[in-house]
């Protein structure tokens, strides 16, 4: 049985169809990558899954339950956690407080502030933020902000983790660390759906890959299969300047 | 009734187009907008009472004076919060508003002043209708100025620069437009337009330190109806406000009191139903 199913999901902004009849099928325990040129509709797809946007048509099903109409908060409680491409930490909070917010609200197990703090600190440790738990988030560098994004999402104890370009802007070393963290997350039986432009990371991580172009799915399969697909090659060569770079 | 509403909307356009300019170009919602109008009105009253200058003839001087005060305000305060959170911008202009209003109370007391021009009670007939000459003059001048502002924005280099900055600050600066100068000019112009509207007010109504708030709120109503930052929608929005006020005054019992509430209700409805404005 699938963990997440998108069934003919469509979303248009004015005249622009950002996601066009998209169907996806993510299985429990896998790492699934969504790739495609800029503007292909990847981030819109994430917003539709996490509930920040409502689709014009189509259904979204999590573990057999239709979640198309429910609020982002309810989806979080059902087990969808996500990061944001443009890092959006809560200012006016320290690193650990940012993560605690997920521990306190992101799932249905009630926790005291002390328990939430303890668990949040453990997550900070896991993603490599243990030196910074009591820092204000203002002034953190890109790599640490990306770690914080992952930590906050993990704190909601997701069954499905949506990672929106967590590798972008990282040095090769930092990207390798992030790959290790994501592998570790999968060990805890969390299913991962990720968007990324860093092809080497996608190749190393993803069990399956779907390629979007102009809101439509043009290929799906293992990394090797889609990389060899002529449509995919054309989509990238036709529009890209430097996004397919390999590290 | 129609004529009444239309005539009034002329002054409303002039009083609010400056605020639309400030919001549209600089992105500053100026709560002190009405206070600049109030200062203009006092300037008109003072020139009239001391030197017998007709408020209409005082427009160039008055506008220049308020432009100067507005530019000073921009340089000493507004400029520093351009990148600050919206809350800070709003509160800063709020502070300026309270400051200017009470400064006026200290300088000129809270008593209302009236400038009685010789043609104050003169009426003219327009076909079957009779309207006051001051109202007609105010409408004509206000519409001329508002339309000239549109022409300036549409045709001249500086107008194009303003529109470019309004659309994309970074892009405009890359094109070699000095964004800061444009902002200064836009803010000065915005306040000068309010000041001119204030001068017009001395022709028909009394002047007091408290009129500023009322016009700030009306200007808000108009730019909210037009869509925040939509300069071209201001004339239509002013018509909507002027006509609905006149309608309530004429057809609702005790309409004078209810008319006061019309614009608040309009703001509330537009914000709740169509937050992007009616004319956008």
């Amino acid at each position, binding site marked *: 049985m699938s963990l997440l199913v998108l069934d003919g999901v469509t979303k248009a902004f004015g005249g622009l169809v950002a996601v066009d009849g998209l169907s996806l099928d993510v299985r429990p325990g896998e790492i699934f990558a969504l790739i495609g040129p800029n503007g292909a509709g990847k981030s819109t797809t994430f917003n539709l899954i996490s509930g920040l946007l409502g689709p014009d048509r189509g259904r979204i099903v999590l573990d057999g339950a239709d979640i198309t109409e429910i609020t982002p908060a309810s989806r979080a409680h059902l087990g969808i956690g996500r990061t944001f491409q443009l890092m959006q930490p809560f200012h006016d909070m320290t690193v650990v407080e940012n993560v605690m917010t997920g521990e306190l*609200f992101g799932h249905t197990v009630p926790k005291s*502030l002390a328990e939430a703090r303890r668990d949040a600190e453990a997550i900070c440790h896991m993603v490599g933020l243990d030196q910074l738990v009591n820092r204000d988030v203002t002034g953190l560098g890109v790599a640490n902000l990306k770690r914080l994004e992952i930590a906050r999402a993990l704190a909601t104890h997701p069954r499905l983790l949506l990672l929106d370009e967590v590798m972008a802007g990282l040095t090769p070393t930092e990207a390798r660390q992030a790959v290790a963290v994501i592998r570790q997350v999968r060990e805890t039986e969390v299913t991962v759906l990720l968007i990324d432009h860093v092809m080497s990371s996608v190749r190393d991580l993803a069990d399956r890959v779907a390629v979007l172009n102009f809101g439509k799915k043009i290929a799906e399969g293992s990394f090797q299969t889609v990389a060899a697909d002529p449509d995919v090659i054309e989509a990238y060569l036709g529009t890209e300047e430097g996004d397919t770079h390999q590290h | 009734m129609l004529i009444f509403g239309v005539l009034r909307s002329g002054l409303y356009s002039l009083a609010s187009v400056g605020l639309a300019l400030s919001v549209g170009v600089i992105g500053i919602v100026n709560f002190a907008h009405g206070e600049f109008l109030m200062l203009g009105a006092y300037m008109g009253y003072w020139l009239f009472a001391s030197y017998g200058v007709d408020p209409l003839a005082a427009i160039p001087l008055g506008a220049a004076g308020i432009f100067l005060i507005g530019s000073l305000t921009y340089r000493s305060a507004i400029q520093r919060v351009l990148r600050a959170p919206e*809350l800070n911008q709003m509160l*800063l202009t709020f502070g300026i508003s*309270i400051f200017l209003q009470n400064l006026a109370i200290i300088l000129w*007391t809270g008593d209302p002043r009236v400038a009685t021009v010789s043609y104050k009670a003169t009426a003219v007939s327009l076909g079957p209708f009779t309207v006051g000459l001051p109202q007609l003059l105010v409408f004509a001048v206000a519409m001329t100025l508002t339309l000239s502002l549109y022409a300036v924005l549409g045709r001249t280099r500086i107008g194009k620069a303003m529109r470019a900055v309004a659309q994309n600050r970074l892009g405009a600066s890359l094109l070699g437009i000095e964004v800061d100068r444009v902002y200064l000019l836009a803010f000065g112009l915005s306040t000068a337009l309010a000041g001119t509207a204030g001068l017009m007010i001395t022709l028909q109504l009394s002047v007091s330190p408290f009129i500023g708030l009322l016009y700030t709120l009306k200007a808000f109503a108009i730019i909210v109806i037009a869509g925040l930052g939509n300069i071209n929608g201001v004339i239509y929005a002013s018509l909507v406000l002027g006509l609905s006020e006149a309608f309530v005054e004429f057809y609702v019992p005790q309409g004078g009191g*209810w008319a006061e*509430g019309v614009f608040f*209700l309009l703001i509330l409805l537009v914000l*709740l139903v169509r937050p992007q404005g009616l004319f956008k």
Partner: protein
Amino acid sequence: MSGRQAVQVLALAVVLVAAVAFPFWANRTQPYYLQIAINIISFAILALSWDMLARTGQLSLAHAAFYGLGAYTSALVTTRMGLPIFLGMLLGSLVAVVVAAGLGMLTLRLRGIYFAIGTLAFSETLRVVTNQLRFTGGATGLVVPPLLGGQRVPQYLLILAVLLLAVVVSWMVNRSRWHFAFTAIRTNEAVAGAMGVDVVRFKVLAFMISAFFAGITGAYYAHVFLFISPIEVYSLAVSVGALVAPIFGGLYTTAGPILGAVVLRVGEEILRSTVQRGYPIIYGLILALVILYMPRGLIGVWASVKSGLATGRKETREPAGP
């Protein structure tokens, strides 16, 4: 308990004892001071109530609306229906809470300046309506029966008790999971929602808590000053005062709004007796200067003074990464 905490608790106890003892002294020697103290405390409750709403990012210009609703409801049910005053005040604050829930739902989508303008419009609409209706006494206003037989000392103690309640609520909000929800919503609603925070619920709840305190303060005002009119209780000055004090004192804290309210009102009293007219100019100046030069308010200044004193402590720097 550490030494510092002990000092803090002791200081709080001293303030509390002084606040409770004050009216018994003032009533004999300086009755006018008692009236000022009542004013200051009411203002502090309004400021704290505004701040609790602002913690969710909702910058209200509608505090006069809740204040006025409290005042008018209580005045009307006590004079027209003969209900006891305490019941009237309770009903007044309940009406404010219910209206706040409705307004909160309606304005959920409005952000920043739109929210401010929308709430201002709501408040002014109420003023105009009250002004026009006959059963509210119209523009002339209403004469209101006195609370607690018009005795200042018990009146003072009552409003002090309301302030204490507001302090406790504010303190609990800032030290519980609510603090995380409020701050998250204020910083970024979309992210807060995606992290499981029920944005609608907390925003509306904040509105209701805030309106409760504004409403009860308005009702109290009516029964202490015995006369209300639309222009007075639905005045923009009420809404502006409620926001200037927290900004001056320090936003999103419990002590800041109270400190701001006390300093502003005392300053205003001194100014009122020296310049007579136009004294609110100081509000304008303070607001502008605070925004330009001390964006974190008095509390922020105090914090930087403290950290400045603790010299030799190194800034914790972000490690360059492993």
